[in-house]
């Protein structure tokens, strides 16, 4: 059985979905306004999303959220009922409200302050959109209003029964009760009312059947009976009235209260004992005219709703993520197991066209297919991520005082859930940068003959087994002269460096680099593109930047589809098998002795086309043997790392290149520096997957100019 906490979690999960559909709906609304084709069902959907958030929030006593959602909902209801036309500027406010609502949900979920302080301003704007008559006060949380009949203005008269010291004395209520035809038609039963009254105290009933016609004239659906009831109870009048709460207007009801004569010393008894003191406290007549078919608007709504039912709703199940991960793990094991079997069969001379060989081939194909399909379960579309970025663009453009249009493409591209989650921060940073630094100020744009509205574009696409995410802007492009100047000033590069354009662009990824002239809300947080880069790299991804002066900048992120498998280069290091992620490898080379140079600090560098690249000996790094003297007989894997431009990892031999199933080590061993994870190879051996970046940093050697040619020594 679910606990309150589980339901709370459900609520926040549901909120995420509702916020997404809210965003969707509002965006559809925005484009529908342009085309002048507003679909009422879209407006209804938007209203419902906010309404549901409010409903759940009220159940959990989230006052702030309820208040804002209520105001938002009130205005949306105006649109829904046609009292307010949804113009573009109004939808823009709605979008901001949706952002703020998301902020409030997040704040309630994590018990933190909302990030944005836009609340009061948005509430004010919303209030301005409401026609006075529609404004309803924000509801009190968790305290349903006392039942008030809007027609009779009747309110429970608890004060009439304030008997002072004699309060404990049972009261006698005389109730005349005449149900109407409609009373029965809507599922009520007089007997059930009597039972409920009986629960309160002692009840006597007297039926008045004088209106009952002859059997032949009897209409089975008509109501002919009236009852006189006497209830003696210690309960309050309110409790008695509550029994009739649902049938107000469906019966003629008269409740008179008279306290039973008991021995009470209090003089008040005199006032309340006799019939003379009886007080009519409730009366309502049946209103048969109240039962025409419901208002036309209700009908159309229902019909439209029914029409929309044809919308293809895909069936889906909710599965615990842990279950999916376990499944992925098992399938991973299965793939490995298949590889082990294939190896055994091969070693036994049973491979190729033998029956076992053919069977194993089929097994391999099925295992792969199974693996791909299981991976697909974890995949999610990038759409929520993109929507979140739309929000970031709005925030950033507001703060920077720039007007920006935001386009997206490829929202349906699917990526592993974890990848999506871990993309949020880097992508947020890139998008903010694009708005803050990428796009010029409006005057500068006009001066350059561009539209004053800047454009930021976010796209996703599948490219050869990877996902490509691109953020581009139509701003001024990277000011390379300035970038270089800053890099020199900050001591990141020597003053006399000669760098080509792409090398200058890459300077942006160096730690501590920031081009912002003024420290703004957006960029003044001490993190730069280097953080973005290491975040992407930790996902097995790569990030690239390209820019055309005056035209804009594009940042491209290339990511693996999943974090469960990895394309690796299987290498031999001092008799050990290791795996280096292919994505990190720029090229592989077998150095000639002439390219190797020993440097002062004791390290060795290799000359690769005009550049000296320090060599990291994996065998030494992992303590398998002392550093070798002769790298010319080894293979070097050129890798890019965040800290240093390039390193060359020295290995004994390259085995092959293959997809490996990643097995985390952290839960068993904690974090091992230089080791990203492990995998099980086809022969059943375990191989470490190395983290080139960390391995290089572990060496903690800075590149230095070679002081002597060591080729003759080696």
């Amino acid at each position: 059985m679910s606990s309150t906490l589980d339901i709370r979690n459900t609520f926040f999960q549901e909120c995420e979905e509702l916020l997404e559909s809210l965003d969707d709906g509002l965006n559809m609304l925005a484009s529908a306004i342009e085309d002048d084709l507003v679909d009422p069902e879209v407006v209804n959907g938007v209203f419902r999303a906010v309404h549901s958030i409010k409903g759940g929030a009220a159940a959990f006593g989230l006052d702030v959220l309820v208040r804002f959602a209520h105001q938002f909902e009130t205005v949306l209801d105006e649109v829904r009922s046609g009292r307010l036309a949804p113009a573009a500027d109004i939808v823009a406010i709605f979008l901001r409200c949706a952002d703020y609502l998301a902020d409030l949900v997040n704040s309630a979920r994590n018990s933190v302050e909302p990030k944005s302080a836009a609340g009061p301003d948005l509430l004010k704007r919303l209030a301005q959109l409401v026609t006075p008559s529609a404004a309803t006060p924000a509801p009190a949380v968790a305290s349903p209003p006392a039942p008030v009949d809007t027609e009779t203005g009747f309110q429970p008269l608890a004060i009439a029964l304030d008997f002072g010291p004699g309060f404990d004395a049972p009261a006698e209520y005389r109730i005349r009760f005449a149900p109407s035809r409609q009373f029965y038609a809507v599922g009520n039963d007089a007997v059930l009312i009597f039972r409920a009254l009986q629960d309160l105290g002692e009840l006597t009933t007297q039926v008045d059947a004088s209106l009952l016609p002859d059997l032949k004239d009897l209409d089975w659906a008509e109501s002919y009976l009236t009852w006189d009831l006497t209830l003696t109870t210690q309960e309050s009048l309110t409790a008695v009235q509550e029994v009739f709460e649902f049938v107000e207007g469906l019966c003629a009801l008269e409740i008179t209260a008279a306290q039973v004569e008991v021995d009470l010393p209090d003089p008040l008894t005199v006032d309340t004992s006799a019939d003379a003191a009886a007080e009519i406290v409730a009366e309502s007549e049946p209103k048969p005219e109240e039962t025409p078919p419901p208002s036309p608007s209700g009908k159309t709504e229902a019909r439209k709703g029914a029409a929309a039912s044809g919308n293809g709703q895909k069936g889906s199940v909710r599965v615990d993520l842990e279950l999916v991960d376990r499944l992925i793990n098992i399938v991973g094991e299965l793939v490995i197991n298949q590889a082990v079997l294939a190896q055994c069969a091969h070693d036994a001379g049973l491979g190729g066209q033998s029956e076992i060989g053919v069977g194993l081939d089929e097994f391999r194909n099925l295992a792969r297919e199974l693996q791909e399909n299981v991976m697909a379960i974890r995949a999610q579309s990038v759409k929520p991520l993109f929507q979140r970025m739309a929000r970031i663009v709005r925030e950033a453009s507001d703060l920077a005082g720039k007007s920006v249009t935001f386009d997206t493409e490829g929202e349906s591209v699917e990526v592993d859930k974890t990848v999506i989650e871990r993309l949020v921060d880097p992508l947020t940073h890139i998008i903010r940068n694009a708005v803050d630094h990428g796009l010029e100020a409006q005057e500068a744009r006009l001066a350059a003959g561009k539209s004053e509205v800047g454009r930021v574009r976010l796209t996703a696409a599948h490219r050869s087994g990877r996902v490509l995410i691109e953020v581009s802007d139509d701003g001024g492009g990277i000011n390379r002269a300035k970038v270089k100047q800053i890099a020199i000033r900050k001591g990141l590069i020597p003053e006399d460096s000669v760098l080509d354009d792409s090398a200058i662009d890459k300077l942006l990824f160096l730690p501590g680099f920031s081009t912002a002239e003024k420290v703004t809300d957006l960029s003044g947080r001490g993190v730069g593109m280097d953080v973005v880069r290491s975040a992407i790299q930790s996902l097995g991804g790569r990030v690239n930047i390209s820019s055309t002066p005056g035209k804009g900048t594009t940042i491209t992120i290339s990511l693996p589809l999943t974090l469960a498998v990895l394309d690796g280069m299987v290498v031999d290091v001092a008799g050990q098998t290791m795996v280096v992620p292919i994505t990190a490898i720029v090229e592989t080379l077998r150095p000639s002795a002439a390219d190797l140079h020993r440097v002062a600090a004791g390290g060795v560098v290799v000359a690769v086309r005009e550049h000296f690249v320090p060599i990291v000996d994996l065998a030494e790094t992992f303590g398998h043997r002392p550093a070798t003297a002769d790298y010319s007989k080894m293979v070097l894997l050129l890798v890019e790392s965040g800290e240093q431009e390039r390193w060359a990892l020295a290995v004994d031999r390259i085995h092959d290149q293959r997809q490996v199933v990643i097995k985390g080590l952290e839960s068993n061993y904690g974090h091992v520096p230089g080791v990203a994870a492990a995998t099980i190879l086809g022969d059943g051996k375990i191989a470490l997957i190395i983290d080139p970046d960390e391995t290089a940093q572990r060496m903690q050697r800075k590149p230095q100019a070679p002081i002597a040619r060591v080729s003759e020594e080696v």
Partner: protein
Amino acid sequence: MLTVLAIDDSRTIREMLRETLVNAGFDVHLAVDGQDGLDKLQSIQPHVIITDINMPRLDGFGVIEAVRAGSAFSALPILVLTTESAPDLKDRARKSGATGWIVKPFDDTKLVSAIRRITAH
């Protein structure tokens, strides 16, 4: 055992209803919107329906109208889950044939006693 069909498009509210009603010893069936509720009516044969108003596909009024218009369940007690944002809703619910109403956020005890009050359980 009393069989309840609870219709609400909010998963949160559905779970709350289920929790409350199962604890009260009822046989609880859930539907995600009005149309879903009507589709399930025949197979579930509930003693009482609890329905939200604002729902996609078919709203609560639609449910009430359809139930009252059909012959097999026309006298079935229907409780409407109303929200405070619609003061005239109670009225409208009654006009379309609702038996009673529960204000959201609902109080567990009140909900259960309201159900008992309008059913013979």
